[in-house]
């Protein structure tokens, strides 16, 4: 099933011709309407007329996180202020957020992309969607909400948290699809289990749309098993409309990125040099159709690779491999580079462990992984906990090449977050 069959299955040559047309148009537009880009293009020695092929995109300057902050609040606006219909922000860890504007058409276009994604996972107007992302300045919930309405689903704008109420809504309105973060999906599964309910029998859930945090294949499997559903990986970023940039289809093997809307590149995060399909690097996106605030070659800092092979679903838009981390999530511990996702993958592959964990760095490069054991993993024998802990240490060491300290905690004792989970606490005195 397709939402916009013609675009979704457009032959590559046509799709690329469309991309080029849109790229030329957007470069021309920002060069005239956004002083920041006029200057950046001049400094890079590129004029809009120089863009004659998609490969010429490499001559364009990058846009970074820092550029968005420096141009806060509206320095990157490409349309008159009165044509803006919506503001979202993307919060950072420090200082001011990034302001992101939408025109009426941007809002509608974002919803169309969401509709493509939802239909791609098999959602129909029959479905009841419980949207458990945060409504408000964060794009996660609202953007998906509008797309689901386009499909004709019944949308329950539940927002995050309050598990008691989430469960009540799921029961009373026979929710079939939910949208949330991987950590909350796991938390909710545990909450439902504690209530003595079996999601397969007592709830109508069929699908989970899981996003806003990079997560591993093992985590997906854990969510699917705990709730008896199919879970689909959702990728997006507020700078590019929010969710709906790339999504998994029914084959659950890579995320189709909507190339009619976004020009995609993978670069070496250190040198900025473009990488070939299949090579892992930083994802760089150019918004080809956004009106209010198009961005050229935006450095997402997300690490992934392109899966060039065609997908059996028939969509011609290339797939991204599961995001394996953010280039700025990378931790350097005792001189070794590692990503939190590597640790997560190991923890999720051990059935005796629960799903809640924390990575704690302190002192001089001391790495401690705190993880809950599963309620079913406690048999009352201390020796078995000691053995489990040793096994976790050994498996982590084999994966990250640094020997961590591991602290097992009782189920439900580590802090739970309802929005994006904060998994890494860095208190090193370096």
């Amino acid at each position, binding site marked *: 099933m397709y939402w916009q069959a013609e675009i979704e299955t457009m032959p590559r040559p046509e799709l690329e011709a469309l991309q080029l047309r849109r790229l030329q148009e957007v470069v021309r537009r920002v060069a005239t309407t956004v002083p920041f880009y006029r200057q950046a293009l001049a400094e890079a020695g590129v004029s809009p007329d120089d863009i004659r092929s998609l490969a010429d995109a490499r001559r364009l300057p990058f846009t970074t996180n820092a550029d968005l902050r420096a141009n806060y609040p509206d320095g990157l606006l490409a349309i008159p202020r009165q044509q803006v219909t919506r503001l979202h922000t993307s919060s950072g860890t420090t200082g001011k957020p990034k302001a992101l504007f939408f025109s009426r058409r941007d809002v509608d276009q974002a919803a169309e992309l969401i509709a493509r994604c939802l239909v791609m996972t098999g959602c129909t107007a029959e479905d009841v969607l419980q949207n458990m992302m945060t409504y408000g300045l964060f794009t996660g919930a609202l953007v998906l909400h509008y797309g689901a309405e386009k499909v004709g689903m019944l949308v329950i704008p539940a927002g995050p948290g309050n598990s008691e109420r989430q469960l009540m809504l799921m029961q009373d309105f026979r929710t079939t699809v939910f949208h949330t973060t991987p950590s909350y999906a796991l938390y909710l599964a545990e909450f439902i289990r504690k209530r003595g309910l079996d999601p397969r029998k007592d709830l109508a859930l069929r699908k989970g749309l899981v996003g806003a945090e990079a997560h591993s294949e093992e985590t997906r499997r854990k969510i699917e098993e705990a709730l008896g559903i199919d879970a689909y990986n959702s990728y997006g970023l507020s700078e590019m409309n929010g969710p709906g940039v790339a999504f998994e289809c029914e084959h659950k093997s890579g995320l189709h990125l909507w190339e009619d809307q976004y020009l995609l590149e993978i670069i070496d995060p250190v040198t900025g040099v473009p990488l070939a399909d299949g090579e892992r690097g930083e994802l760089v996106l150019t918004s080809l159709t956004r009106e209010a605030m198009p961005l050229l070659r935006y450095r997402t800092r997300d690490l992934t690779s392109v899966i060039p092979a065609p997908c059996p679903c028939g969509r011609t838009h290339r797939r991204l491999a599961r995001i394996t981390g953010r280039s700025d999530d990378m931790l350097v511990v005792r001189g070794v580079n590692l990503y939190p996702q590597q640790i997560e993958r190991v923890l999720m592959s051990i059935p005796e462990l629960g799903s809640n964990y924390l990575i704690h760095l302190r002192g001089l490069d001391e790495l401690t992984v705190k993880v809950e054991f599963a309620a079913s993993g*406690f048999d*009352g024998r201390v020796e078995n906990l*000691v053995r489990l802990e040793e096994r976790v240490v050994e498996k982590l060491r084999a994966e990250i090449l640094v020997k961590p300290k591991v602290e*097992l905690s009782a189920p439900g004792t580590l802090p739970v977050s309802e929005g994006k989970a904060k998994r890494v606490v860095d208190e090193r005195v370096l």
Partner: protein
Amino acid sequence: MKPVQLLAVFAENKPDQLARVTRQLADAGVNIHWVGIADVQKFGVIRFLVDKTDLAFEWLKQHDVTVSRVEVLAVEVEDRPGGLHQVAAILAGDSISLANVSGFVFNHRAILLLEVPELERARRLLTDRGLHLLSEEEMLSL
């Protein structure tokens, strides 16, 4: 004869953990007959012998306590030095290793609580050698 059932509660290194659990058991109207703490490295497990095991187990679970059941053998030994050695020697002779042992003396009766991997075999060995194993009822009526 059924093995004696203990409740095992995971104890993080928090001083109030024992008090928290005993308070909850009191709330449930459960009487504690014996308490033992097993410590290995940084883990602690508190074991309880209580009069209403099933009720206590469900109650603690509902109150978010990490709890499990552990089956043990309760062996009566002579209250003199060497009592434990006698039991250990019998089991070792049949290459059964002891995982956890606790002992206490009550009204001049010395009782050992043994956690062994092969409960039934251990029970037969000990009864064959003339040792008295207590049932859960006997334990609770001590």
